[in-house]
């Protein structure tokens, strides 16, 4: 039998169609989580995304309430939101940068798949994961550290949390795109999570930081979303914190857009310079 005698299967969907884009978005996103996120197995997930955040909350609640006169609940809320960065920033960095390390990047870029769908599909599992980690941490805060949320404010807290997790996943996507050119992408992911801890009002109110740090904080994800979560936890409604949530979403969209354009630029550049597989 010769190669020409083999029946050639017709493509199942036109790559340019909406249906194909949806499949790339949904299935691609799901598979990227399972295959590219190194921590998606219980032996790593539990120590890193359950155990680590638990102790982070306890550490900062103890340190903060010892060093200042604020309650442990203040630090618990800040850190319960911040721990979503572990899933969002590290997860997205791995979901993009690992394509290169696992050798699948050339295959991905050779496909005619819709790039926006390919890129956006990666967000969904990591946003869901970030929300889960954050909600778990809130649970720890409620049980052990005196965090109290009014039932009436839960919807607002949830919306602010969702916006914050999205924007942190977006900065993770940008780091992932940058990592396509770096030797160690997790270095930048570590720096981002630490910067969030320091600049975004997680443990120290933004107003108490020097002016230049406030500027940096306002440009990073988390700051507005976290403030919205704090105010909502104190009983503020959508009317009071809607603006903060909106700014947080806009910051997330800006980072996601920057990430997409950088990814596209690096794709073109890698094709031109034949550096797709260069590490």
């Amino acid at each position, binding site marked *: 039998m010769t190669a020409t005698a083999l029946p050639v299967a017709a493509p199942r969907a036109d790559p340019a169609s909406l249906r194909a884009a949806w499949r790339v978005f949904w299935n691609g996103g799901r598979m990227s989580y399972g295959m590219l996120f190194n921590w998606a197995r219980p032996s790593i997930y539990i*120590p890193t995304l359950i*155990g*680590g955040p638990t102790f982070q909350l*306890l550490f900062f609640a103890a340190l903060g309430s*010892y060093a*200042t006169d604020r309650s442990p609940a203040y630090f618990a809320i800040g850190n319960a939101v911040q721990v979503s960065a572990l899933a969002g920033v590290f997860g997205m960095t791995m979901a993009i940068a690992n394509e290169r390390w696992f050798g699948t990047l050339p295959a991905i870029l050779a496909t005619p798949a819709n790039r926006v769908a390919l890129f956006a599909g990666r967000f969904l599992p990591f946003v869901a994961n970030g929300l889960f980690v954050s909600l778990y941490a809130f649970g720890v805060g409620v049980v052990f550290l005196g965090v109290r949320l009014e039932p009436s404010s839960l919807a607002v807290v949830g919306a602010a949390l969702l916006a914050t997790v999205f924007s942190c996943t977006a900065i993770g996507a940008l780091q992932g795109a940058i990592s396509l050119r770096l030797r160690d992408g997790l270095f930048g992911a*570590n720096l981002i999570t630490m910067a969030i801890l*320091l600049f975004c009002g997680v*443990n120290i109110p933004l107003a*108490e930081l020097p002016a230049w740090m406030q500027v940096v904080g306002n440009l990073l994800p988390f700051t507005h979303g976290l403030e919205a979560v704090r105010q909502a936890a104190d009983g503020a409604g959508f009317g009071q914190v809607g603006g903060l949530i909106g700014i947080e979403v806009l910051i997330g969209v800006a980072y996601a857009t920057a990430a997409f354009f950088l990814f596209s630029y690096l794709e073109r550049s890698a094709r031109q310079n034949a550096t797709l597989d260069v590490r």
Partner: protein
Amino acid sequence: MSASRVIRLVWFVTWFNVRMLLASEFFILTTFISPLIFATLAFFLFQSGGGTAGQTLLYVALGAGMMGVWSTTLFGCGGAIAWQRWEGTLELLVSAPSRYDFILVGQTFGAVVLGFYGIVATLAWGVLLFGMPIEATFPLVLPLSLLAAIVSLGSLGMLIATTFVLYRHANALGNLLEYPIWLITGLLVPISVLPLWIKPISYLLAPTWGMEAIRGATIGAEPPLLAIAMCFILACAYYVAARYTLVFVLDKARRDATLALQ
């Protein structure tokens, strides 16, 4: 092996490992950058409290620096044997005429010594940014305190290296154990304010006494002789435990033919 050859071997492996870790971006982060970020965070937190906690900037800087030492020890030692497996050098080192535990001592000391550079970086950071005064109430005891802290943390690192190898994902254990040890060893929050049941655990951990020895020599009211002695006692205990664990782990790996398997 003669004592001089053992010292030469440990010395060589220590510096070789320091140079290897310096080539890793991750260890640059945990040793030099992360302590500065946590020091800044702690400085602002204590500043925000308006001094109600009654701690000096030097107290905070030393604590944040020691946090970096612990992170470097934890990640540097936790993955020591696993890395040798990945690099394919474990079989060669285990079957070399030199005793493998001496090689491991050098490796773990390399990580700890690198970690102590972090304390220097944190102190410099505190002086430059926050005008922190550098002082030591017992300057002659300080070198002994530092040596005691390095020896005890190095031995603890060896125990970590030999036990973490039983778990496939040593780095995940590192992620888990960073914050709790920072908390219960009194690096920034004194042990006296922690719940009573935590204290016995704190006293079994080298960073507790290492920190006590260094702080005692710098800002303490009396020489930290007990802390220095405890560092050396714990170092001996850790070494014996690590040696037994290592013999068990290597015997098992040889028996099951899994020495090179990840």
